[in-house]
């Protein structure tokens, strides 16, 4: 752990440290609360009976826990969740399969086209599906891929790829060559050295790339909305808003489903938060 300005100052002037710490802790906890507050409101709303939704009251008069059960029957959420998982998972795998080799090779070798490739990565990082949705859509028509999960997987993988290559490139470049060279001397091949030596050390970078892609794909909305039409091929982001339609407003279901979608990702974050900071560090010092 490195020192921080706060600690440095505290150490410099031996003031009542505990007082500073109390303030600091209080502020930090309030900030934390502020970040989850909207989601607490989401939870409270998800637990209201439908007829209490549109009245002002902080808490429901009757806590309708059954909303979380009913919602599975009200819509094919399980199917949508499977689609979201499949798309996000597969997009992440594709991104890694394409991104890892490219990032590794460009970090270790110079060759004709290397700079062109890195420039491509740098530029396409600026492209987002939202701005290109009409083009993506017409392309998928040309490829006869509309309303398929494959199209969603490809789009999510491709648009998250540049950032992942960048992060991984930075990480690989920061790992001393000598480690791998030792493996070469042992007679290991390049791929073996990559897998056995470099990858384990690069775990934070890989985790960051994985998380970035996974979250990006999990939360993608506009392309899925445009490309998919069958309800059993729509991810959660498209399914969730359909609880509130022109004539019907099931906000309690909408928010219950939202929470069901958020919780797995938050848990994922809890497990990898440590790696994440390491991975982002690599990207930022490169």
């Amino acid at each position, binding site marked *: 752990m490195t020192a921080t*300005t706060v600690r440095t100052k505290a150490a410099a002037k031996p003031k009542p440290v505990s007082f500073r710490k109390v303030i600091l802790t209080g502020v930090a906890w309030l*900030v934390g609360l502020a970040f989850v507050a909207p989601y607490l409101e989401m939870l409270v709303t998800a637990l209201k009976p439908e007829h209490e939704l549109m009245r002002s009251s902080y808490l429901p008069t009757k806590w309708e826990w059954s909303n979380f059960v009913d919602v599975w029957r009200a819509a094919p959420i399980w199917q949508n969740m499977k689609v979201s998982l499949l798309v996000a998972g597969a997009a992440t795998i594709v991104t890694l399969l394409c991104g890892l*080799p490219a990032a590794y090779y460009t970090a270790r070798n*110079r060759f004709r086209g290397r700079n062109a490739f890195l420039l491509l990565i740098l530029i396409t990082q600026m492209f987002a599906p939202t701005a290109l949705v009409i083009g993506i859509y017409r392309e998928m028509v040309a490829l006869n891929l509309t309303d398929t999960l494959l199209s969603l997987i490809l*789009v999510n993988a491709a648009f998250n790829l540049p950032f992942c290559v960048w992060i991984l490139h930075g990480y690989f470049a920061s790992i001393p060559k000598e480690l791998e060279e030792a493996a070469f001397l042992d007679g290991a091949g390049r791929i073996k050295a990559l897998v056995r030596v470099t990858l384990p050390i690069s775990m934070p970078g890989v985790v960051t790339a994985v998380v970035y892609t996974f979250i990006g794909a999990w939360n993608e909305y506009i392309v899925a909305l445009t490309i998919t039409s069958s309800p059993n091929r729509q991810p959660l982001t498209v399914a969730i808003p359909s609880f509130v339609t022109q004539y019907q407003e099931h906000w309690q279901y909408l928010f219950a489903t939202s929470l069901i979608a958020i919780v797995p990702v938050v848990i994922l974050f809890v497990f990898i938060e440590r790696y994440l900071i390491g991975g982002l560090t690599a990207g930022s010092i490169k």
Partner: protein
Amino acid sequence: MQDTDVRTRGARATARAPRARTGRRLGQALIPYVWIGPATLLIAVVVLWPVVEMIRTSLQKISSSGVTLGSNGTTNYSDLFDEGDLVHVVVRTLLWVAGVVIVTMVISLALAQLLNARFPGRRVVRWAVIVPWAASVLMTALVWKWMLDNYFGVVNEVLLDLHVLHKPVNWLAHPDQAMLWMMWVAVFVSLPFASFVILAGLQTIPGEVYEAARVDGSGTFRTYFRITLPMLRPALLIAAIINVINVFNSFPIIWAMTQGGPGHATDTTTTFMYKIAFFDQNVGESAAMAVVNFALVLVMVLLYLRASRWREEVR
């Protein structure tokens, strides 16, 4: 500098090894493209092709039902530039991006400092800060819309109970207020990623640097602005650029909260483009808007390329 040395040396070393084994020159020359091939292919097919498609569509005449009726020359573009709202929308988009990114960066700097400090429960607070990143932007936008409702939103309720307001305010109905609230939501969902990148950057600053500053007798502010901030530049640049992209392209926030209305008063280029296609039934003109949007992105790419060259000098 040192990094580059290592890389060049490494390239020579690895180039020698396989050649000794295989000795096939052509195969040798193709090896790099095997490694970068899949990534290049994926980007070319899925990212670059739509750009071409979009430009093509913007030059076609497409009927209101959606049938392509052939070439339309530049009519779609002249129709687009005839739209009285276009200039407002573009200016608003630039203000939206600049406002959100600047505020996000300033708050993120403070937030990262906080998350880097030691206090009991730091883990939990870090997890809490991550939540808006884990939640989809659309869901976050919807819950904010819910909280800002004129009749039963919790924001009005709290402000009424605290006697800050005397009667409910219809926050999302007035363009200026609505814009500020939506910018706040955009900041809110951008903070986790930005502050974590900066936090990561903070952790790369060696403790000795601060020690030295302390010995020199620098104050907290001086230390921060003379040492911490300059060393955070690379992290800030990454956080900012990713943020710019996301905010510029943010469709769900505005679409969920105001649909760009009333009229076009809270539209950005992205929602405007969508409305041209699906309200005005003009897919061709919408594609023209997309191309204009894309041109704006290219301008930002150029700015970014300049910035990153500057970054290499620093390194």
